[in-house]
């Protein structure tokens, strides 16, 4: 009945969940852009990821947590990259990674859950907007986007909304026989909620080529790449990662987190092959962490953080920052990195460039209540 298979897709993994929200045209879509949103839940410490090693206050604020610039990859005269991000550093050298520092959503308090709500809904304040900006982006794409796929136990808020979202995840349970699946379709025929969910689940299963996929970072990157590479596969994806809330033992934990992210991204890059050139991955978190180390080998909830754009479509090899500095008077409320760039604007710009949409219209659609600004530089290759 539906001749074009348009969908979104997302996947669940380990502590977090991964999802991909694809849009598809019928024929070969080899030239189509892919857009992936990786959310870092728990407030990732931007100051130890894109390290402002040249800022005179950095080393003393961080004490034993400070990243030694000698071990990190120098990005420019101000910033260096965390040493665990080995593959990401290669992307930077190849002009495929762009970092954005001192960036934040409009949210200014320090609750994870409110902060993630603002980041995912694109609303001006927590719980003011019901659906997610990534779902609204899907609705802006041409042609009927009948379905969306969530590859996870649940659909994350950024993907909830008017565009249908389905889900797919590799399951360790024995598959149910086709007869039972058909009978369940019949059973749900009269139930609007379950009927819609079930229909999209069945469509997603039709696209899964790698039913035995596992859930470690490398497998996940490969699985996502598999879906994104298909001609009839998704073009928008979202991956959830957790574990960034480093109140203690930060050096060890952040290192492991970043290594997992780095591995997943490299695996996605390798799996996408020629399609990597058309891919943009946005990595962002709900807010940053305190400029100073806390008393327990970690950092507490802060404000501005760092974001990344990775992919062959990115005009990389740059760090974008209106660097506010880390001196006592420069800090936001005397404790956090001060935001000088809006995450909303970054998202609106990159999304419009990725899909050749009007940036002002994307801004209004995704972030209706907060004005987004046009960035002074293109983020992606033309």
């Amino acid at each position, binding site marked *: 009945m539906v001749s074009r298979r348009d969908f979104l897709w997302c996947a669940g993994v380990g502590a977090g969940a991964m999802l991909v929200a694809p849009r598809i045209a019928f024929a070969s879509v080899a030239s189509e852009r892919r857009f992936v949103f990786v959310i870092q839940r728990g407030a990732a410490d931007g100051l130890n990821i894109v390290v402002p090693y040249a800022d005179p206050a950095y080393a003393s604020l961080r004490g*034993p947590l400070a990243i030694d610039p000698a071990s990190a990859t120098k990005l420019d005269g101000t910033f260096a990259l965390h040493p665990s991000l080995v593959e990401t550093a290669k992307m930077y050298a190849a002009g495929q990674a762009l970092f954005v520092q001192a960036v934040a959503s409009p949210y200014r308090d320090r609750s994870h859950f409110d902060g993630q709500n603002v980041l995912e809904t694109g609303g001006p304040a*927590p719980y003011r907007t019901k659906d997610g900006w990534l779902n609204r982006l899907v609705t802006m794409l041409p042609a009927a986007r009948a379905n969306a796929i969530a590859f*996870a136990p649940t659909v994350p808020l950024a993907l909830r909304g008017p565009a249908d*979202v389905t889900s797919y995840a590799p399951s360790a349970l024995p598959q*149910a026989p086709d007869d039972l699946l058909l009978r369940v379709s019949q059973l749900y025929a*009269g139930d609007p909620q379950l009927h819609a969910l*079930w229909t999209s689940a069945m469509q997603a*299963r039709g696209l899964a080529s790698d039913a035995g996929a596992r859930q470690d970072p490398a497998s996940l990157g490969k699985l996502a790449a598999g879906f994104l590479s298909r001609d009839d596969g998704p073009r928008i994806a979202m991956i959830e990662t957790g574990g960034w809330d480093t109140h*203690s033992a930060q050096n060890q934990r952040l290192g492991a987190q970043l290594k997992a992210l780095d591995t997943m991204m490299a695996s996605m890059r390798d799996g996408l092959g020629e399609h990597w050139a058309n891919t943009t991955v946005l990595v962002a978190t709900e807010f940053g962490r305190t400029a100073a180390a806390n008393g327990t080998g970690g950092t507490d909830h802060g404000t501005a953080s760092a974001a990344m754009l990775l992919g062959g479509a990115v005009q990389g090899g740059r760090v974008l920052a209106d660097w506010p500095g880390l001196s006592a008077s420069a800090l936001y409320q005397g404790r956090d990195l001060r935001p000088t760039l809006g995450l909303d604007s970054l998202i609106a710009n990159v999304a419009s460039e990725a899909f050749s949409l009007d940036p002002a219209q994307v801004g209004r659609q995704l972030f209706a209540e907060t004005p987004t600004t046009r960035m002074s530089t293109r983020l992606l290759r033309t």
Partner: protein
Amino acid sequence: MDDRRQATSAAIALNRFGLGVRADETAPADPKGWLLSQIGGAAYQPMPPAWAGEPSSSTLAAEFADRQIAIRSASDDDKQAVRKSYNEKIRDTYRAAVNARFMSALQTPTPFVERLVHFWANHFAVSVEKPPVAMLAGSYEVEAIRPHVLGRFEDMLVAAERHPAMQIFLDQARSVGPDSPAAERAAMRHPDRKPGLNENLGREIMELHTLGVRSGYAQDDVTEFARALTGWSIGAMGGRGAGGQQRTDAAAPGQFVFRANLHEPGTRSIMGRQYDQPGEQQALAILHDLAASPATAHHIADKLARHFVADTPPPALVDRLARTFTETNGDLPSVYRVLIDSPESWSPVDAKFKTPWDWTVSSMRGLGRNDLGNVQVAPLLTQLGQPVWRPGSPAGYDDIAASWAAPDALVRRVELAQRFASRVGDTIDARTLGPQLLGGSLSESTATELSRAESAPTALALLLVSPDFQRR
């Protein structure tokens, strides 16, 4: 729109308030009375038989401390093997506790109170990503939650915050007052290493456990509360402790202890109130005021109503519950009584979509299971997307349908229902079990599909994944 069934009062009591009908159970003649008698407390088991064989937090914490010492003292060649064997031990402890929790849910004489245990454990959530928390999560539910579900909110609050699982999960045990004796001594020894505050526990108590977010407190209040909480700690579990006191620690591993030398001296000011109590009493006084705050009453009332009645609960019901919470100083049975007496709770349309935990418990109860056989519940719940005691964040699991009713999640339930049903074979007839589980209110369309199924197990699987059974 659809032929959604109209639930009977008996079905509502058993499914919405309880954990689902057992195959061997008869419906209560007086559904409301059945619920009220449960919160009377006589039949409720704070320590049910299923939990009786599980170790206490002090035993588990001592084992964990042994692990740390064993790993540290192992030779480099052996370290990996020692670590591995202890990690398996932690996993086994966690799985045994999850099985005990599940068994208790199968066998309980008071399913409404058992549901409340699950509710409160999720309200005061810990998450087992950290190995010591994985070890302690079961003991946390038994020691901090179960004894207080029919008591006062403040007692549960204090028990939860002091428990080693929470102390470790929210990084409290090593938080040090910047001007405390321990900090000053540390500064003399290692001027470059500054022990200090960790505000994680203080923030989450205010945001998640009591007042609720955006209820009027500010960053300064969080920091002040974190200062007051310094000194709240536990006996060292073999890791590196604050100030190095673990080497001569008088406190048993994991046991709550107030460490005066970590406590930030001075009066604290929180939301306009001054707290000049000495030592440990200071944070207790703050907790007391937080528990009594109208914001807390509203926060708890809202969550309870969402859990039992609807994703967007009726405001009048929330207000009524909050008023009772305040008037009774957080006497929980009084609040539950209002919930039971409220007409909103008895709407014949099932508005709640079961969580994976709810669905699995009610399925096994519906099939009349009294034991687990060789089923490991923990990996099963992981496959369904709700690993037990692992919400991944201190907010606990969401309590709305959008979080659970997702396409792939439905497929998982179908896969699992098929597995459950195939084990039962043709010993149960879904056509008679269906009306019984749904309190005599199985929808006609589901009844039709059950009668058309090609085999008894298929009919049973369909019953478990039917719209009727997946909502409560």
